[in-house]
């Protein structure tokens, strides 16, 4: 019945949605933000451990949401580890473009870790589901807010 939904719900997404990585509030973190999608009520917290040289040493999240938002948050925490704040922001820019724009419309976000880009590509199917883009980007907006010291953010 849902064969043409496999582009959106790829196996990796279903796996991360069901078994999110880096889930739960960590004992140590120095940046945190709470994100909310008012449309569906999804709430998420992102916890970052950022070293003095501006490198994300650790990233966790908790909260509730749909398979897309949970998988996106899970994949994000995996890709963020070891990135500088600037690299993390560049990935956010790329990810946002991937979810909302055709390839030729993408902005140049500077150097992107090719491994991370490949990993995040499983979520590119969201592009065909405008109503679900905010599910995929909620974690990234929240990460962005955490880096900038805003404790609360929404997808609006």
């Amino acid at each position: 019945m849902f064969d043409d939904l496999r582009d959106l719900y790829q196996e990796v997404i279903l796996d991360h949605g069901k078994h999110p990585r880096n889930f739960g509030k960590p004992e140590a973190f120095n940046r945190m933000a709470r994100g909310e999608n008012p449309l569906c009520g999804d709430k998420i917290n992102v916890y970052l451990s950022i070293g003095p040289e501006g490198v994300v040493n650790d990233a966790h999240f908790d909260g509730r949401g749909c398979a897309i938002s949970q998988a996106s948050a899970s994949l994000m925490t995996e890709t963020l580890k070891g990135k500088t704040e600037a690299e993390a922001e560049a990935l956010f820019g790329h990810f946002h473009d991937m979810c909302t724009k055709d390839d030729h419309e993408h902005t140049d976000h500077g150097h992107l870790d090719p491994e991370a880009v490949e990993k995040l590509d499983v979520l590119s199917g969201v592009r065909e589901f405008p109503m679900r883009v905010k599910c995929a980007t909620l974690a990234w907006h929240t990460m962005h807010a955490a880096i900038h010291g805003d404790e609360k953010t929404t997808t609006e």
Partner: protein
Amino acid sequence: MDTRILTNAPYDVEKVRQDFPILTRLVHEKPGRPGKPLVYLDNAASAQKPRAVIDAMANFMAHDYSNVHRGVHYLSQVATNLYEATRVKTATFLNAPSPDTIVFTRSATEAFNLVASSWGGAHLKAGDEIILSVMEHHANIVPWQLLRSRTGIVIKVAPVLDDGTLDLEALARLLESPKVKLVSITHGSNVLGTVTPAAEIARMAHAAGAKVLFDGSQAAVHMPVDVQAIDADFYIMTGHKLYGPTGFGVLYGKAELLESMPPYQGGGDMIQTVTFEETTFREVPHRFEAGTPPIVEGIGFGAAIDYVTALSMGAIHAHEQRLLAYATEKLQAIDGLRIIGTSPTKAAILSFTIEGVHPHDIGTLVDRAGVAVRVGRHCAEPLMDRFGVGATARASFALYNTEAEADALVDAVRAVREFFN
């Protein structure tokens, strides 16, 4: 049209469906991929429109359109007569004592804001209490909070039992306070489907010296409503859920209450005379209808009332109750599915969650099978908190839905479970 013959005929849903052009369309058509028949189960958000409503609005604009209430020319009178006929039809539909007790607004939401601002502003003072219920739509919460920040009123909340029935004992306890001036409660929950015992609530409120307002946005489209029998002081409904156009709402108010209320908005059409020193206002209900009203929408709403009246609200209610029982039984049989709202008195609204699957994912998946349901918080966030869910999926039935469509929903939901297993 002889409505008696139609009323006594068995309910022919296939024939009814032919009245709704949109129901024949397919969704998700793409080159090389056949579309799916539309199974529209998002009626509690907004209902589809019968040809009679579409034609009435188009014909009015093509033949009879003019502004109302002010011209001396021919079409102005024609348009005014047609527009005011809707007020008479609305009064009959709700069994209001007079068309003058019917105020037209641009939405149910505007009607709530009108009562809160005008009646509340004139009659409520700091420390006065109003009682809402936990299952209210945000439209029956936020206007009162705005009033609270202006006047210092106190908002109390009546709870619901685990099955979604209004907790009348708790309501009675809240009414023991002598400060309660108003009970503003839904007549039918947009999430749980719960139909509240309006006559009993009104009796309790009146015994405590309080007025009562019912939100009929859902109830009035699913069953016959008699505002005099339930002794409502205010009753609010909306046009677009009753198969009419958007942009049209209704406020019924007892004459003496409406008379006691100052204007809500100022402007044209609501005044008698205007000078820069002083303005006098028109009589009720026109006092509350500032500016050019939603004329075309009013014509469409009148046609919608004619349409459901010809089918009879009693017959519509019976049809939807059969569908509700059928769909409830089938959905309940699905492992891990929880129906939120199982009150013995319900309108045909089914909110549910599936263990391990977020409602948003349910919505996206069943949509691919052509089934349109609403997912999310349904403008009732406090109620989501009450039942410990972040969101639900909601299937809501209308006069044109069928058992086959309930089956399509159930099949799609079963497939969702398998997909995420």
